[in-house]
């Protein structure tokens, strides 16, 4: 029965990784932008939630709700002012600019908050659990996974059922022709990043409640997020969830065999999938 428990924990962990990855998937899918600061922005959002909690004394979920529009604005501005300038055929400029951004964010957080570990206090929720048959499920991981599903469903609805989503897809296909339709690609991209930052805030909420965080853990989250996106395939949010689950399960199974192998197992799973499916499991028809 231990294996069932391990796999279930892995699946739920996959939900957290999917949350890390969903914003990335959105931005990567719409503008092929590799944001190497993504992990650090999750950490930034976590600190923001922390500030709101201590300043206003509200519970973390309310704090996250307050932080979301702030992060939206930040993402919108970042894309509009900085990142829009580096979009294009060449992948080097966005890679380098976001690399620089990652360093700046990490060190700004270090200056502002020191390297001390922090945690968002979730009270009783942290340890609450319930049994389903032979398996014990923590309330927090289940909530995380459910949130991941909710986020993906919502994003898909926006993407495929709304005018904004049409604008996203059209601009992603062909920004010049999209402007002929009266779309302003610069604003569309900015909105996409803004939405991605909202998702990042949700991810940050669960990251911060689940475990300790400090300014330097961003890059590791970035790698898990990217692995999930790449395994899933460009443009597929459900694929991103699948990718997250694959990494989550690989990690928990690896850890069950030998605790030192947890992270390694995740990376190996990533490489194995890519060896057979270089474009991921559910890639778009064209690229």
């Amino acid at each position, binding site marked *: 029965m231990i294996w069932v428990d391990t796999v279930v924990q892995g699946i739920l962990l996959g939900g957290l990784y999917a949350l890390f990855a969903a914003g990335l998937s959105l931005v990567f899918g719409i503008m092929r932008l590799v944001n190497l600061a993504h992990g650090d922005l999750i950490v930034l959002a976590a600190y923001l939630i922390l500030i709101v909690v201590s300043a206003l004394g509200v519970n973390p979920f309310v704090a996250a709700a307050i932080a979301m529009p702030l992060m939206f604005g930040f993402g919108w501005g970042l894309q509009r002012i900085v990142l829009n300038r580096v979009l294009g055929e060449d992948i080097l400029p966005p890679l380098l600019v976001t690399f620089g951004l990652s360093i700046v964010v990490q060190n700004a957080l270090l200056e502002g908050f020191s390297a001390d570990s922090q945690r968002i206090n979730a009270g009783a929720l942290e340890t609450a659990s319930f049994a389903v048959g032979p398996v014990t499920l923590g309330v927090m991981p289940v909530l995380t996974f459910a949130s991941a599903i909710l986020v993906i469903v919502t994003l898909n609805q926006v993407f495929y059922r709304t005018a904004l989503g*049409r*604008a996203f*897809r*059209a601009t992603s296909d062909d920004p*010049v022709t999209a402007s*002929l339709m*009266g*779309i302003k690609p610069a604003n569309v991209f900015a909105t996409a990043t803004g939405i991605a930052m909202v998702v990042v805030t949700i991810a940050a909420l669960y990251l911060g409640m689940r475990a300790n965080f400090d300014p330097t853990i961003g890059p590791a989250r970035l790698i898990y997020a990217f692995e999930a996106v790449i395994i899933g395939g460009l443009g597929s949010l459900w694929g991103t969830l699948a990718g997250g689950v694959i990494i989550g399960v690989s990690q928990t199974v690896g850890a069950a065999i030998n605790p030192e192998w947890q992270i390694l197992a995740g990376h190996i799973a990533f490489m194995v999938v890519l060896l057979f499916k270089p474009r991921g499991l559910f890639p778009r028809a064209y690229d």
Partner: protein
Amino acid sequence: MTLLTTRGLTAHYGDFQALFGVDITLDAGETVAIIGANGAGKTTLMRSIAGVLRNGPGMIAFEGKPIGAMTADKILGMGVAMVPEGRKLFPSLSVEENLLIGAHGRKTGGYWTLDTVYALFPILRDKRAVPGTSLSGGQQQMVAIGRALMSNPRVLLCDEISLGLAPVVIRDIYAALPQIQASGASVIVVEQDIGQAMKVASRVYCMMEGRVTLSGTPDTLTREAIHDAYFGVSA
């Protein structure tokens, strides 16, 4: 009433100059044709008017207002829509979504809605849910035209809509033109097919190497004059 004017319009691609002082006008209710060989600058002219190509010196005015410095999305908002060369449908969108996105930037309302576009090109109604790019060339052209119409434009720029299509298909597409004209849109048609252009237009401009070399009405232009203006050499 003059709807659209260009005066001394120039355009560059990097160091390469593609338009050398082009003057054209489009009056309300007219259909004007621009003919010329490959590389004459016809598409460059259309793209300059539509705002996709930032122009060099020269003036473009729509209803008297200068639009030369405006971005493409603003120009669409003013009522100038383009059917781009090569159709340029969005692969990620279905046929219906391609049509819907045509109205994204201009919601003034008017004759053209999904229903009236489907009435114009009935085959599209059957294919409304398929990806736009999975259609045949002619059907894609219909989607591209319908997409531009959805913004209920005052001016419709049609860039080489017959390119790559069989004569039968071209006929079907041009058969839609009277209804488009009737809905209140003034049309500029860019064509390499001289015969087709002469059939539909009330005035014709001929371009060669970035300049207008000839202009007039179809009945006043002789074959020789067109030949010279098109190719630059006497027959």
